[in-house]
């Protein structure tokens, strides 16, 4: 008797398979505190030390590798150049523009208070 029931599968719990969510690089991801631009703002000025004149290629490599690793953490699946393109495009939105302006303003204030 039990076997017949099993065959019909009426008692079994119905499992709904969810479609895998594709990670997308959008504003919310770009603005995430742990991997997005806030991380870049926090860390980049401290981590990157340049040698300046006479070491241009080394400086460029250093800068690029830092950004590449940051972009890799931000959006694993895309290649560096593609990620940069996506980010650039996101920068045109109203929200991103406002954020960017406020970041610049922050620094401006800081710079102003330092000189005073």
């Amino acid at each position, binding site marked *: 008797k039990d076997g017949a029931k099993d065959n019909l599968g009426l008692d079994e719990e119905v499992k709904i398979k969810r479609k895998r969510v594709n990670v997308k690089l959008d504003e919310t991801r770009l603005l995430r505190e742990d991997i997005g631009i806030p991380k870049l703002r926090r860390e980049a000025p401290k*981590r990157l030390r*340049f040698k300046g004149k006479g070491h241009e290629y080394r400086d460029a490599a250093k800068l690029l590798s830092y950004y*590449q690793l940051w972009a890799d953490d931000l959006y694993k699946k895309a290649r560096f150049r593609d990620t940069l393109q996506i980010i650039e495009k996101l920068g045109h939105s109203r929200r991103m523009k406002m954020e960017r302006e406020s970041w610049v303003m922050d620094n401006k204030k800081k710079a102003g208070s330092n000189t005073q």
Partner: protein
Amino acid sequence: LSKIPETVDPMIRAHILSLCSALGGTSTVEDGGYSLGDDALACLKDLKKWLKLYDQKMNRFDVARCMAEANLVKGDLLEILSAWEEDEIEDRIKQRLALGCIELLVPLTWPFERYNEQTTVNHHRHIPVLQFAQAGYKKAILQHPSKRILSNVVRVALPSVAVPPNERTERDEGIIKLVLYFFRNLVMIEHPMITETDTGEEISRSATIEALEEQNVLHFLLVVSSGMGIEFNTQDVVAMEVIYHLVKSVDIEKMFLTDEQESQKQGQDLTTLLKLEDEMKRASIRGASTRHNRFGTTVWIERDDKTRSFVSGQGALLGKSTGLVKMDASKKWRKPGGADTKGVSRKTEHDMSLTIERCAKAKLREFVGEFLDAGFNPLFGHLRRAIDRDAQRLLESNQQQYFYLIAWFLKAERMRRKTLAAGSKDPATSDFESFGLVASVLNQESLITLNRRMTDWFDTRQWTPLQSAMRCFTQILLTVQDMAVSPLEDDQEIAENIQNRLFYEEVTLDLVVMILRAYTKQPFGWLDDCTEMVHVHLKMLERFSKQHEHMFVRSRKRARAQRKKNATVEDGAEGVPEEEEGEEIAELSKATMRERAFNYSRFEQKFLTQSCVDTFLAFIGNYKELNYSQMKRAIIFFHRVFVKREQEVLMFRIDIVELFNRILQGPDGLPNSHPARKEMDQFFKHYMRKLVKMLEKRPELYVELLFTKVNSTMHYLQFGYDKQAQVSK
């Protein structure tokens, strides 16, 4: 017999075949020569009627296909044409027969239009076969053992040409046109599919040029084009088309090399190419594994926060940057690019380049020289008037060809002068010719025509015609530049005048900037032409405005500002009658165009935008295909933005750093022997120095490096303080 469905109605095939066999055939009596059928002329006429009343009227290709199957062209028409001996000048019957043959050959060799809404299933069935048939016709015509086909075709037109133009009947005009159309079709036919066994060499451009020259067709073309406007009138478009298809995409610089120079250059080219290949090989070995491919190395890249990325293969051990390159290369996801529905990125005829063989080269060079001496001014002057009139016989594509040809011949003329100047050892004694030979395209009217077309095509987003107009504009500028340094005083004066006119209208100046900004995904050739135009234009304008302290341009004044001004003036006097107001508006619209002093730096300011920089970045992105002058062009533009105008922030972007770094340092970057490498290297070093300084001064740039800059913060980023608000009183 066979169950295969018929491609053509068997009744029609039977009709055509019987007509073809009635036309004539190989004789069994006279040594296997061709003998005409009794009613050959009537047969020719019948065949013509079939083509016209069945094929053309019903929009089918059935009859043409049957004729291809019946070997009509090679077996009959060419035999009849070649049978007209040179001494039989006055033979009316033979001439009539030859004309009948041409009347058949023209529709049979007519180019097929691209598939459009008129296309039927029938077209898809027949056109591929007919294209091969046409290639066969061309081969048979060019290689006919009598070597007389083409000259006999010209002979058909000669009696009509000999008649003075005002006495010519419509039939005479028609015959001349028919013959010209025959040559246009012939030159236009290309091999539809080139394979290893069927290279299409027999009908290549070189072979065509040689045959046309040997059989005096090029002379005929010269006669027609030099007599344009006097002897001939409506044949201008066809004559131009023949010349267009004869010279299109021919490499002019290579055409003007002498044999000695060419063989020397070929040797040099081979050496440089081999060296380049050697360098490439060495570069690829540098990154390759020194062990076998299952040696199995795994490397991790650790970041500051102790997270790791893993990369396999020995190459990753070489350095951090190779590891990062490998990490990137292993990613499979690609950013989906939008589909190019409008076909903007499709390559066009303008993007091809063709080198012709040695014997044909000399013949074409001679033809080009003679055409410039005699035919250039009459033909292009006449065509320009036709374009201005919007003549019925002109198609849109003809206008495009017109500008393409002007550009081509102007460049050829400059090359010819250069080779002449290099050939004569003593420049003082050699007599310089004036630029009068190409004057017809440098006068005010043609500049207006060019300008109007460019504006039209830009507004309607027709990129391919615009490309030909841009090319034409560039070549006109370069010719004027050569004229300005000519030893003849007249030339210098004229050059001065032309420059005055060229740089007078502000609308034209702005058009150049707008075109540069409008780049999206046009093919490389377009980008090349566009950047060249901008480069030459800017350079000449800069020099000209330096030489002339008081330079004026005609600009459109802003109507709104004027209206506002008027409103404040008339504030007190209210209740102005409406009529007067209307008059005033009319007067206003007249006054909106006015002269004002030209300020070069204000004009250059217009190039300091992101979209202009992006266009040049897209151009330099093709660095692997660029030669020295092209690389230089891009570097000069960047230098203009970055150093001369100090708009550094505009170029501080991480993708620019990446691109420049890839060009100079990447595994497939510029080879060490590339002539432009030094300049690029200098620029990049300067750029990096500035960038590093700026990053240390203003850390917010770390974020802004990712984006196109916003107007509101750009000034602060550049100078460290806000732009002072302009106080207007």
